[in-house]
């Protein structure tokens, strides 16, 4: 079973993370190394995050 992280200080690392929360702060641009840029924001109040997975049906599409 996938572990759930509840503790303060727990970290989550992924290529694509979906999130839900009561409040999301305004996006801030951050400068990473060299020409790279990123964004930062905070989730506040009952925040839930999950590392996303691409999923597809095992069956063929209905015609």
């Amino acid at each position, binding site marked *: 079973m996938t572990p759930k992280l509840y503790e303060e200080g727990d970290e989550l690392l992924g290529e694509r993370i979906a999130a839900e929360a009561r409040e999301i702060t305004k996006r801030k641009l951050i400068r990473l190394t060299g020409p790279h840029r990123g964004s930062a924001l905070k989730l506040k109040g009952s925040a839930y995050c999950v590392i996303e997975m*691409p999923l*597809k049906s095992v069956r063929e599409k*209905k015609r």
Partner: protein
Amino acid sequence: MNKYPLMDLRNYVILDEEDYDVSEGLEDDDLRRKKERAKAFFPKQFGYFIGSAIAEWEVEPFSLLQQISELQKENLFLQQQIMELRNQMNELSKSILVEKTIVLREVSKEKAKKEIKELFASTGETLYYSDIAERLGLELRAVVEICKDLIKEGEIKVDTKTL
């Protein structure tokens, strides 16, 4: 002194034009010549109207011209302000993220599971948890839980080509 000298002056010019309109019955060529003459004569005419206004309303000439000049400056300043605000508005509207509201539905786990299965079957697309939650209006946490169940049941699988 009149409170709105410029407005009255404008009305005065319009009334004067109406009173002395002798264009009726003129041939096209005569009208064209009249227009050309009027164009060339305008600064003089304008001076005449200002003169009339000064005489009629007992306005100080310097004061009136000063007011016109001040109003012109104010007008220019306001136009610049409008242009600046318009540019800022355009930049802001570009930077604002379009917010989309998702209305979450309260459905039972069984019904949500059925809907997710149907979504995968009908689209045939590769979907992420957030796509499913958004399309079906379901809570993200519930979608994750159900998708894990569906993986165990062999209904859906991780698309390794997209990873």
